[in-house]
């Protein structure tokens, strides 16, 4: 199974950006852990991060081309604004999980809508940085269509 874990703007600052909300682990720490879990479970996990909306859309399109089985996406602030990411996700026929480190619904009202969730199969939020590894661990059990 091949999986893209796509991360949006400011996620590269994990570990230093408001650690009381997002924790002290860096994105590299999280990626290493997820890739390790993936190796054990026969899942090829590729981590990516961009501060640019268009680059993220490009990666979703790459996932379509490269016949990736699942996308885990933390679109960060673009969750609440990006119809382009919503549309790209709709074109991807594999399994899609929206992921957030914090629970956006508990924060400022401008974070309460999500363009990602209606285009996704599932939403996981507020489980901290551990949310990533919890999701990767669960992937073998989910109804992911065969490619």
């Amino acid at each position: 199974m091949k999986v893209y874990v796509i991360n949006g703007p400011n996620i590269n600052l994990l570990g230093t950006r408001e650690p009381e909300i997002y924790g002290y682990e860096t994105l590299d720490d999280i990626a290493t852990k997820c890739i390790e879990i993936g190796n054990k479970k026969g899942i090829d996990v590729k981590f990516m991060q961009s501060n640019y909306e268009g680059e993220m859309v490009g990666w979703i399109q790459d996932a379509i081309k490269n016949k990736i089985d699942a996308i885990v996406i933390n679109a960060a602030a673009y969750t609440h604004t990006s119809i382009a990411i919503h549309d790209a996700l709709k074109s991807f026929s594999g399994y899609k999980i929206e992921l957030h480190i914090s629970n956006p619904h508990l924060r400022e009202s401008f974070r309460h809508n999500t363009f990602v969730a209606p285009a996704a199969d599932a939403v996981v939020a507020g489980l901290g940085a551990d949310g990533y590894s919890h999701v990767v661990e669960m992937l073998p059990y989910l109804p992911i269509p065969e490619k």
Partner: protein
Amino acid sequence: MKNKLLILNGPGLADLSIYDEFYGEITLSAIKEKCKNVCKGLNIELDFRQTDDEDELLGFLLKDSEDFNAVIINPVGYSHALTAEFAKHCLAIKTLTLQKKPVIEVHIANIFKQGADITKPLQVPEGQMGFVSGLGVYSYVIAINAISKKLNKVA
């Protein structure tokens, strides 16, 4: 000491067959079995409940939760409700999270796919609370795993 987990299921979840288009073949008893097995493997004592009575659900959340280290709740329609009961529900969850007890809201289906108006905010209580929606029975499993990890970190 064994950690104690309370899993609460709200109105209508006893019979999932009427919601086939969202839930497929899942039954609440199958979910309960799965949760029991996962908890056993993690050495967690589980109390799994369902009620169609919103007052009873609130009672579980407000009073019975005192005896537990963590709570997972599938509140069904509450996420889009704006009622007096919902305000009480929020307060109960806030109280739990202030005691640093992990609380995770779970849904079997992705509630955002069920024609929810995404421009209207989802109604959720204040306080630190996790949220998992759309993974079927695995919404519960991931929540149990997350709670186990969190409780072991604190201990």
